[in-house]
């Protein structure tokens, strides 16, 4: 077996061949004979009462097959929230119905209230323009503070725009307040975590099909988790038995969170396919993606950090308003709460933490998890206020962090925010960072920049995140309405090739290459003989999908467990073949041998025998070699890292340029360094985008004014530097079989505060008394702050 394909090596990705030759199969690439096309009619106002919808002209237009409005779905279910959050007073969150099509009211620009099905997409578009809706525009609720104090409600039936008012941990509140009151020093910071649009490059698309002969529905859709989508549509929205709905998520062009969720378009194409007896397809335009994909972040926060006179952290207290938009997307309620508040102790031994989050309905697109999901918001608040505190106390920002780090001998460590960190070594990460970032050379580089008339700043950050989502026991107590295990089936074919069916979905993460490395190592076989199957509810056992940096830690662990079962079954077969006791069979390097002898059979011989079971004792030994495992993690995993960057700021224009960026991460054991590095790069690109470029802006009327790539500043190649990435500081996860922690979100979590800290450092070095600038740090914002 080639050594360069083992765990820890970086074999080239096998999936690249089809993508590089134009043979990927994304949802919109798949055509089904007889297909019709759906186009949605979307609200142009942020908030309005639907008085009437006149479809009479549209329905007679060429090619039109059917028109649906909200009335057609008034009697079916809604798209549910996946996590129940209780307010501080014990009352459950407000969960207004999220219908397939808006009915009665439209609640954000882009809210679909009708759909046209026609022979061609152009005909459907033409007819959509002929639908006349009388929508009485209502005042829009856009600003969160005004939403909480005003009397215009996004959902009239709940009589408030507050979804919940959550405290974490409520029992810690008084002690936190007391610690802050009695502290020698308190640093306070008001900040905004800017609203982002995930912008996977493949727009959402869905094709519904219905077979009247069998009563089976098939949905091709852009999903990170086809089983979850099946569950939501089947059980909550359309009321279809799960065994009559097949969901296929073929190649998917990026997700970053936005394709976790079930969206109404998926239900509509299925319902339309059933009514018409034809496949119905829909592909979003980019404009529709901006208007209707779940957005990310959008927090307004005040954070306070109390310390003693030496900079030892005594308490963090935060108050946050989190925008959930017009409807609750599936994980909108857990993102600003348990994925955010539980991380508010950071990497630190701080004794007291209290977090208050008010979730607010507004007339904007739904907001949900986006790469990092709550953890970037936690890290940004913590690492910005720590940096401000360091400046106020005159302590070096790295020294201040080190002074408060959890130390290697303190694990398992229960943080003041309630999580139990299993492993880590934050000082080692910081040591590595200082080395790679060449902090000693900074002064000379700053002088060189100053000689050019530029201000240079150095920024640093430590982060911890909770990944490997998630232990079902724990999340069940906390309000999750699903379990968060994953599943895998290892099928060994008679001639020795393998199919491994996994619940995780790969849409850029490289599972098709990395999972075979793991199985091949365990079985001592060539990874080329192993095929990964994912993304089809009819072909994989079950799965909760890909998000929260969970694929390897959770689904990879299921793959390990299933492979262990294959080895165990193989031992039984080998014992029979070798006429030995099962307990005497040892398996190593692809061979089942009898301990203490040279007798043995190869893995391939056992596989063949499993399917040609002549003379098997059938009561004791089943034919076949196929095993399934469900894996439910015992705890979250806790990747951590230390990041540094250096920026140059042009004082004439306010333009920020990143000169160098170093990311040092502890992801536990690394299966494929090339893929892990690529994941970090991507996260950095998105985090730098958030820090310097991207912002989602609604005007006071709720119009999205950043709804195209001409208005929303996506990072381009010339906005970003080469990165230095290191993951050599390894403390393995202690509770999963691979010792892995997850790497998908780290870059997006660790980078924004690093950059802002660097810019503040640059400005202060130029004598500008600037202590904070809200992201994105556009030239206009930086210049304004410098010249305030």
């Amino acid at each position, binding site marked *: 077996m080639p050594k360069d394909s083992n765990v820890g090596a970086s074999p080239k990705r096998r999936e690249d061949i089809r993508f590089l030759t134009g043979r990927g199969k994304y949802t919109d690439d798949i055509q089904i004979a007889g297909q019709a096309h759906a186009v949605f009619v979307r609200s142009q106002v942020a908030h309005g009462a639907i008085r009437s919808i006149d479809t009479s002209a549209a329905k007679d237009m060429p090619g039109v097959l059917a028109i649906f409005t909200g009335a057609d779905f008034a009697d079916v279910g809604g798209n549910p929230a996946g996590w129940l959050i209780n307010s501080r007073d014990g009352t459950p969150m407000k969960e207004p119905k999220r219908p397939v099509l808006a009915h009665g009211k439209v609640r954000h620009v882009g809210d679909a209230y009708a759909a046209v099905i026609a022979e061609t997409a152009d005909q459907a578009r033409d007819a959509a323009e002929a639908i006349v809706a009388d929508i009485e525009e209502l005042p829009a609720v856009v600003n969160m503070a005004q939403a909480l104090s005003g009397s215009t409600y996004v959902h009239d039936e709940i009589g408030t725009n507050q979804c919940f008012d959550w405290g974490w941990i409520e029992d810690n509140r008084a002690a936190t307040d007391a610690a802050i009151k009695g502290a020698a020093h308190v640093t306070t910071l008001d900040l905004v975590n800017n609203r982002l649009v*995930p912008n996977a490059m493949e727009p959402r698309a869905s094709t519904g099909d219905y077979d009247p002969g069998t009563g089976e529905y098939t949905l091709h859709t852009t999903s990170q988790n086809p089983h979850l989508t099946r569950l939501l549509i089947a059980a909550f929205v359309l009321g279809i038995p799960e065994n009559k709905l097949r969901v296929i998520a073929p190649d998917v*062009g990026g997700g970053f969170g936005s394709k976790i969720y079930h969206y109404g378009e998926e239900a509509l194409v299925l319902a339309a396919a059933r009514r018409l007896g034809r496949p119905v397809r829909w592909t979003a335009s980019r404009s529709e993606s901006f208007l209707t994909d779940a957005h990310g972040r959008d927090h307004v926060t005040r954070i306070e950090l109390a310390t003693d006179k030496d900079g030892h952290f005594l308490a963090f207290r935060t108050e946050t308003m989190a925008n959930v938009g017009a409807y609750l997307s599936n994980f909108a309620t857990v993102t600003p709460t348990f994925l955010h508040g539980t991380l508010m102790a950071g990497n630190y031994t701080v004794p007291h933490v209290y977090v208050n989050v008010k979730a607010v309905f507004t007339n904007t697109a739904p907001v949900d998890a986006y790469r990092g999901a709550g953890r970037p918001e936690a890290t940004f608040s913590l690492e910005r206020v720590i940096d401000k505190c360091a400046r106020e106390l005159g302590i070096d920002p790295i020294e201040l962090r080190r002074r408060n780090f959890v130390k290697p001998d303190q694990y398992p460590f229960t943080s003041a925010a309630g999580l139990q960190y299993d492993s880590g070594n934050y000082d080692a990460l910081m040591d590595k960072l200082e080395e790679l970032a060449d902090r000693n050379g900074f002064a000379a580089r700053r002088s060189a920049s100053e000689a050019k008339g530029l201000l240079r700043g150095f920024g640093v950050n430590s982060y911890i995140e909770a990944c490997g989502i998630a232990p079902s026991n724990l999340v069940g107590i906390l309000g999750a309405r699903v379990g968060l295990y994953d599943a895998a089936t290892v099928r060994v074919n008679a001639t020795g090739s393998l199919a491994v069916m996994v619940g995780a979905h790969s849409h850029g*993460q*490289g599972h098709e290459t990395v999972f075979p490395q793991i199985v091949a190592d365990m079985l001592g076989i060539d990874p080329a003989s192993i095929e990964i199957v994912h993304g089809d509810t009819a072909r994989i056992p079950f799965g909760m999908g890909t998000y929260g940096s969970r694929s390897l830690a959770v689904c990879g662990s299921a793959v390990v467990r299933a492979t262990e079962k294959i080895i165990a079954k193989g031992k039984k077969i080998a014992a029979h073949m070798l006429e030995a006791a099962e307990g005497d069979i040892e398996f190593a390097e692809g061979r089942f041998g009898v301990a203490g002898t040279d007798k043995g059979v190869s893995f391939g011989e056992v596989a063949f025998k499993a399917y040609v079971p002549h003379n098997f004792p059938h009561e004791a030994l089943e034919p076949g070699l196929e095993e399934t495992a469900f894996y439910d993690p015992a705890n979250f995993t806790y990747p951590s890292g230390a990041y540094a960057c250096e920026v140059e700021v042009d004082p004439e224009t306010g333009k920020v340029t990143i000169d160098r960026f170093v990311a040092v991460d502890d992801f536990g054991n690394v299966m494929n360094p090339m893929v892990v590095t*690529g994941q970090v790069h991507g996260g950095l690109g998105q985090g730098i985008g958030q820090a310097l470029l991207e912002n989602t802006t609604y005007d006071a009327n709720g119009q999205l004014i950043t709804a195209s*790539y001409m208005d929303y500043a996506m990072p381009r190649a010339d906005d970003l530097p*080469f990165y230095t990435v290191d993951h050599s500081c390894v403390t393995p996860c202690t509770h999963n079989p691979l010792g892995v922690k997850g790497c998908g979100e780290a870059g997006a979590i660790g980078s924004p505060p690093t950059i802002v800290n660097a810019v503040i450092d640059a400005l202060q070095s130029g004598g500008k008394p600037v202590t904070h600038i809200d992201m994105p740090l556009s030239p206009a914002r930086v210049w304004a702050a410098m010249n305030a």
Partner: protein
Amino acid sequence: MTQVSMTVNGKAVSGVVEGRTLLVDFLRGNLRLTGTHVGCDTSQCGACVVHVDGRAVKACTMFALEAEGAQVRTIEGMANADGSLGVIQQAFQDHHGLQCGFCTPGMVMSAAALLKDNPRPTEAEVRAHLEGNICRCTGYHNIVKAIMAASGQDVAAIAAE
């Protein structure tokens, strides 16, 4: 509806299209060459870049009828004659220059146009050339590296595995 004929990846093709049919829709819909992607509706993302008479063109910005008689090359025409990956494609695989793969065809076509005019571009030149191609997965690091490697430059000094 009008008849349109062109040469795509060396093969004469024709079809009947509306005046408003975009070249990208003709390639994807009529010819079933779905490697050319549509990622936006404002000609910003570059997922649809193809070559028309040797020039890189965003196929969402051109009507199919405008390509009458043209030589069109798409991602499906970039592999070597024996089916193996072309130099740029191979460099993208070698340097992990793609993740989800959606922007990749446009990136490869754009890179090919760059290297035709500028056989040894600097990092800054590569980054500037990719202004019209958006990738959300890679942070561009490995794309830039792959293109520089495809031009025969030594990229070993650029950090990463």
